């Protein structure tokens, strides 16, 4: 059975929903402490949402140096699945496992509401169970979600199809479709192989029909199905 480690940093607050989503998807879920130096028997890792280290200095800037991050980086380097959700995405950018940075929302406010995002590719570790072009409605909840990168990086991301999720207009809504001012409406990106993935929306918060929608659940079913790691010896 695929085992997915969910890291708990001091200040993480989405680890319970994330663990539950993995279990619901048929995976074995393991909560791993940020002080651990290995990921036990996990095949994949999720850095969950929250406010690791209080977002002090910059979101993710201190979490990047937590002991467990060496093991996360080793897994990423070995081609293992590494997924960052919201604060986890911020940590992956600070750790240089993904390019760019997440800045204060353009409108200077914390935004907590559903958004519509389009799945731009389904050959990644956590989108295989979606169709390319499919639009799903899942929530965002962040104060610093405005994706920025220098023009050369943005051009490369687009050319290499490394934009995974993009905010798209919400039918019948007056709210801006891009909730934070992200460049190119980017909600999530990945590495070239689609094994290291980060995005701002929270699929784990809408992953059970009892909540009215399970639009986010397929991120976890995809991950559980695809995370077959061949760790380099």
């Amino acid at each position, binding site marked *: 059975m695929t085992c997915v480690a969910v890291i708990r940093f001091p200040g993480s607050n989405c680890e319970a929903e994330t663990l539950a989503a993995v279990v619901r998807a048929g995976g074995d879920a393991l909560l791993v402490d940020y002080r651990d130096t290995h990921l036990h028997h996990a095949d994949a890792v999720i850095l969950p949402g929250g406010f690791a280290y209080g977002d002090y*200095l910059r979101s993710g800037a201190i979490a990047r*140096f937590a002991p467990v991050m060496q093991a996360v980086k080793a897994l990423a380097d070995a081609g293992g699945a590494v997924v960052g959700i919201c604060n986890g995405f911020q940590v992956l950018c*600070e750790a240089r496992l993904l390019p*760019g*940075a997440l800045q204060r929302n353009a409108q200077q406010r914390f935004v907590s509401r559903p958004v519509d995002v389009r799945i731009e590719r389904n050959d990644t570790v956590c989108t295989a169970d979606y169709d390319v072009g499919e639009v799903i409605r899942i929530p965002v909840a962040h104060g610093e979600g405005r994706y920025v990168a220098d023009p050369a990086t943005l051009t490369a991301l687009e050319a290499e199809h490394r934009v995974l999720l993009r905010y798209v207009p919400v039918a019948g809504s007056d709210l801006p479709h891009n909730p934070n001012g992200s460049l190119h409406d980017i909600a999530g990106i990945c590495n070239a192989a689609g094994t290291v993935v980060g995005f701002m929306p929270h699929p784990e918060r809408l992953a059970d029909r009892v909540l009215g929608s399970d639009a986010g659940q397929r991120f976890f079913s995809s991950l559980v199905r695809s995370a077959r790691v061949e760790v380099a010896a």
Partner: protein
Amino acid sequence: MMVHVHVRIVPRSGLLDPQGQAIEHALSALGFSGIGDVRVGKAIELRLDAASPAAAAATARAMCDRLLANPVTEDFRIEVEPE
């Protein structure tokens, strides 16, 4: 020798700084005129035991590169002041 290190971190020019914009609007609303390019950053102060001011500056640069500033979004300036 002990020195004081002042690190000033500012958003890289050309990047949207919504805090700076909000402050610029607020200053205009208060009647201050001729304002432009308001940018909000951080000031980090620390004491450091170093062989020389130049060595302290080099250490501070390393601190900025590794932790204090994000090269994607921020520029920094370092001042070293003997205690």
